[in-house]
């Protein structure tokens, strides 16, 4: 079984981002970049399936600028076998990314696509579902458990009220939630080995996919600030304030 793992280069999750002073976008100057945490979980899940003998090959793919090769090397160090960068300098929206991924899927014919449920920059939570729609594949989003059973995958999903388990025909798209697994750390030998693994670069123009944006960002502003309130001295004072000042309890 061949697994395709689409990943994304994003601002490291420890960085507190701010809008630019002129509100034209997010200030990304000298900010540490990393593989999107949900994508890292997706890579780990693919590697575990390979270690368990269910998968034979793992291909990591991303759509982005040349520097996204760094995150593909991370995926290779975690255990992906080879990588593909679809290079573009455009800021591509989820719809465009899913169209690029469709072209890659048609070329590589993976049996399973595992990817993060959302990227922590745009927080869109769209690309996996869109790719599944374009391929007419079933989808299992927000996965917390994934089992391959013959020509099907049985997936437990995190839903609002608890957990839902569904069975989907392969090929399919699965998107990872936080509790699917805990990704390993890449060892130094594996980081060295990753440098020798194949990484193909394709120009997005060569795929003949329409990447023109449909959504324009007019401005990016800081969220309304919440002012810190007061420190109360005791439980008595807290209860009194909640009753008589905030009037939220009776």
């Amino acid at each position: 079984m061949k697994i395709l793992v689409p990943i994304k280069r994003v601002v490291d999750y420890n960085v507190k981002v701010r809008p630019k002073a002129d509100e034209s976008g997010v200030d990304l100057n000298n900010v540490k970049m990393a593989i999107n945490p949900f994508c890292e979980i997706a890579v780990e899940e693919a590697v575990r399936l390979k270690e368990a003998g269910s998968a034979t090959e793992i291909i990591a793919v991303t759509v982005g600028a040349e520097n996204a090769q760094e995150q593909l090397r991370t995926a290779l160090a975690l255990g992906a076998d080879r990588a593909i960068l679809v290079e573009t300098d455009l800021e591509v929206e989820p719809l465009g990314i899913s169209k690029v991924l469709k072209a890659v899927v048609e070329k590589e014919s993976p049996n399973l696509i595992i990817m993060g449920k959302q990227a922590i920059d745009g927080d869109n939570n769209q690309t996996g579902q869109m790719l599944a729609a374009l391929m007419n594949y079933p989808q299992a989003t927000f996965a917390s458990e994934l089992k391959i059973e013959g020509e099907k995958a049985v997936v437990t999903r995190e839903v609002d009220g608890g957990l839902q388990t569904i069975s989907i025909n392969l090929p399919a798209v699965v998107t990872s939630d936080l509790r699917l697994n805990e990704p390993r750390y890449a060892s130094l030998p594996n980081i060295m080995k990753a440098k020798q693994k194949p990484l193909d670069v394709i120009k997005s123009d060569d795929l003949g996919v329409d990447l023109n944006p449909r959504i324009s960002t007019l401005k990016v502003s800081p969220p309304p600030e919440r002012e810190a309130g007061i420190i109360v001295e005791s439980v008595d004072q807290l209860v009194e304030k909640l009753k008589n000042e905030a009037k939220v309890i009776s």
Partner: protein
Amino acid sequence: MTALVIAEHDNKELKVSTQNTISAASKLDSDIHVLVAGSDCNSVAEEAATCEGVSKVLYVDSKEYENFLAENISNLIKNISDDYSSILAPATTNGKNYMPRVAALLDVAQISDISSVESEDTFQRPIYAGNCIATVQSSDAKKVITVRTTAFDAAAKDSNSAEILKLEEVNDAGISEFIKEELAKSDRPELTAAEVVISGGRGMQNGDNFTLLEGIADKLGAAIGASRAAVDSGFVPNDYQVGQTGKIVAPNLYIAVGISGAIQHLAGMKDSKVIVAINKDEDAPIFQVADYGLVADLFTALPEMESKI
């Protein structure tokens, strides 16, 4: 111009998130239709017809929609989408699951998790876990939108009697199958709909100590939540999680107990009307967003609080 709102329900009752979404739709289009798709869900269609601002309820009753499998429901929505200028669903796990699929089938870029409607094509939405608010403009003729329900008041119910139109639409894609659902059973209100939420963090030390929150929750009619740290430590199940990667809540009163206030948690609760923080670390970032902070050991403060409310 007519908006189509996709109803969230459990085949028995309409969820309030539908009413929040109707309210968002009313800022966008003058006419609103609601799609109720499910199995044996006639009562939901009738309930939806009483929502203010709704002129028509489309009611589709068929087994393949019972569990909202994305493959089936997205085909249904696509098939009936022609007459609508916008399609909106609440950004629940259901809406997040099927709506991007609808958008791709229609070749439309979805606008996720909107927190305000600026005009018929311009919206605000939080990005980077709510650290920035983006104002975005869509050039698609048809808008596919998911709605951050806490940002919109619920449309009134029981004040209308819209027409209910039953549609025969069979869309079993046959590529996915529901097996089971394990939903947490609780007599407490749902986290995202509760007026009061009390959440515990890593400071609770273990799952058993969450009983300290239960006494207060019972007295206040509150839902119980948790930080991601508490969930990751295995204290409580993931459906308790409030934050960027969990649920977004905005109750009248949010009580954060033993929660330091990581960005990812604040993203899920900072729109609450009144925030109370109880933490023994006076430097915890949660105090910077709290209206009332109590620097105290939660193991003494919680029992005392329970006895005094």
